[in-house]
């Protein structure tokens, strides 16, 4: 279960990062900006994190689950930061194939602009 929770928090942070201009441009090319989709990404990311918290509560009681959840969040955030710094192509792939946020987002960008990474 903890692995599932970790995957959820990790993907959550991938989407959080997508809401930030710089990381969005790394995937979609220079002149792009997430614009209002930013809020969509953040909402999806929050849902991921909440789902992860729920997964944690199935294993631990709420008080411990929250602590485990926060621990997972830290780990996921650091890994996403590392991914963005040293393996941004992996990050792009993860975004393309692993994230709900992308499915909900405007598909036009995918078609019109070949990703730069």
């Amino acid at each position: 279960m903890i692995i599932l929770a970790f995957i959820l928090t990790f993907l959550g942070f991938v989407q959080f990062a997508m809401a930030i201009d710089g990381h969005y441009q790394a995937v979609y090319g220079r002149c792009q900006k997430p614009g209002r989709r930013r809020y969509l990404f953040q909402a999806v990311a929050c849902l991921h994190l909440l789902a992860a918290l729920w997964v944690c509560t199935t294993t631990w009681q709420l008080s411990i689950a929250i602590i485990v959840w926060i621990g997972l969040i830290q780990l996921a955030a650091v890994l996403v930061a590392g991914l963005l710094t040293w393996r941004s192509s992996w990050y792009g792939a993860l975004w393309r194939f692993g994230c709900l946020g992308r499915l909900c987002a405007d598909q036009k960008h995918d078609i019109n602009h070949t990703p730069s990474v």
Partner: protein
Amino acid sequence: MKGPFRQSMTWLHTWSSLILIWLLFAVFVTGTLSFYRTEITHWMQPEGHIANKVDTVTAADSAWDRLTLLAPWGKSWSVSLPSERNPKTGVSWVAEGEAEERRRGPRALINASNGEVLALRETAGGNFLYDFHFELYAMPRDVGRTIVGVASMLMLVAIISGVIMHRKIFSDFFTFRPRKRTVSWIDGHVIGSVLALPFHIMITFSGLVLLSSTLLFWNSNPGTQNGGRPTTVAPSQLEHINTSTHTRPAAVKPDLAGILADAEQLFGGPVASLNIQHPMTANARIQVTSATRDSLFGGRTGRQLHYDLNGNRQNDASPGDTAVQSMASSLATAVFIVLKVTHEARFADVITRMLFFIAGILGSAMVATGAVLWVVKRTRKQAGSVGYELVSMLNLTAIAGLMVAIGSYFWANRLLPADMESRDLWEIRVFFLTWLLTLLHAYLARKQHGWFIQLSLAATLFICIPILDGLTSPVGLWAGLVAHDWPRIGFDLIALITGFGLLMSAFWVRQHTLKRIKNGEGGNHHNNSRAPIATRGSTV
């Protein structure tokens, strides 16, 4: 208003953290290691390393048999069963005519498979690191606690002012820009702090609260926390007990297997310990305690069940006591308990403990990068001034030197003769002597590749720890792996990873120093390696 306010926060952040930053780093590192205190002590007593995995029932059986020899007339016995954190069985008893007193830790550690009393070497173990992280060493306990308390207060100030001064906390959330000198150090510092901010706040604040009794000087009863150490009796003393002439007629042994199976099923997890009242009599009563703590509000232990000699469960009403009801008389006490349990990760299983450990590493990284950042920012303008040189010297000792000292502490554990007089003291002496030597080295020769030398020395010590372990433990590494001696193997693994991490940073420092010398930056070559880390340049 906004500008000056932020500026003053920056000033506060810089200087409040600088005062005790070296101490803070040591506290953070040793505190992080304390999450694995039990495991470290296990590693440091190779006589207790196991060669074969033992199931709970065998361990309980052999402990029972051993107790019938050790304390046949005992008023009560208790057995702490092997766990994933410590594969040895601990036994203790209240002997006939002995006052019942609350003691911490077992009286003797026995081999879980055959019940033999283990002749473990004297070691300061993980307890030294644990004590050091909140009481320091060689000073009255209250003084040490007060100093650490002040340091955590400064840390809290630094965290809060750091959050305020940070302008783009969300848009720079994941940003790390390597190869950019000062900017990279700032990014590293920010990543270490912001991403694990909840942990830092929790650990600093709860640490402060735990030490609060020593900080309030009008408190009449300072240091109410436990200072008790598990004290085990030397095997020679146990033999003395063995020779008691009167033996009790052997009473029926309870159905331990049945009791354990029933309890494990009810707990939904492993059993941590057994406590037997009136052993060797017909009205023996067996109390079984669960290893899992399912709430932050629990008391000292997990759920408990009671059985009689025939293995029938007694239905009494003390399941999983909620400490908020039984222990806490007020909200403040309840908060204190929650903070204490959280700070010490008492509830944690292996994976959650790992999460705390990683967060602790991030915290240490935050402090270390902060210390280096102070120097990096001032290299151009202040190099050569007394303050600058002092800080860069202390940085080298406190960061790289501490790693060397910890490494040699572990080496001393294995290389000092096992039956040495006051052996644990010598381990600690080696730790501090090494640290002192690194200070001396930093003072005399930090400009001659000081960082590279100390980092690579620490790396060598840590990388060779598994080899040392394999050579000096009675149980080989492979045998330990087969026997699932995870505390030991995990220790070796983490040491190896730490060692390679240190090695990488050592070579990174060297590369940069050499490049900088080649580029002729900063004029005099001799001075270039003054703070090699400070030379992190655009030429990775």
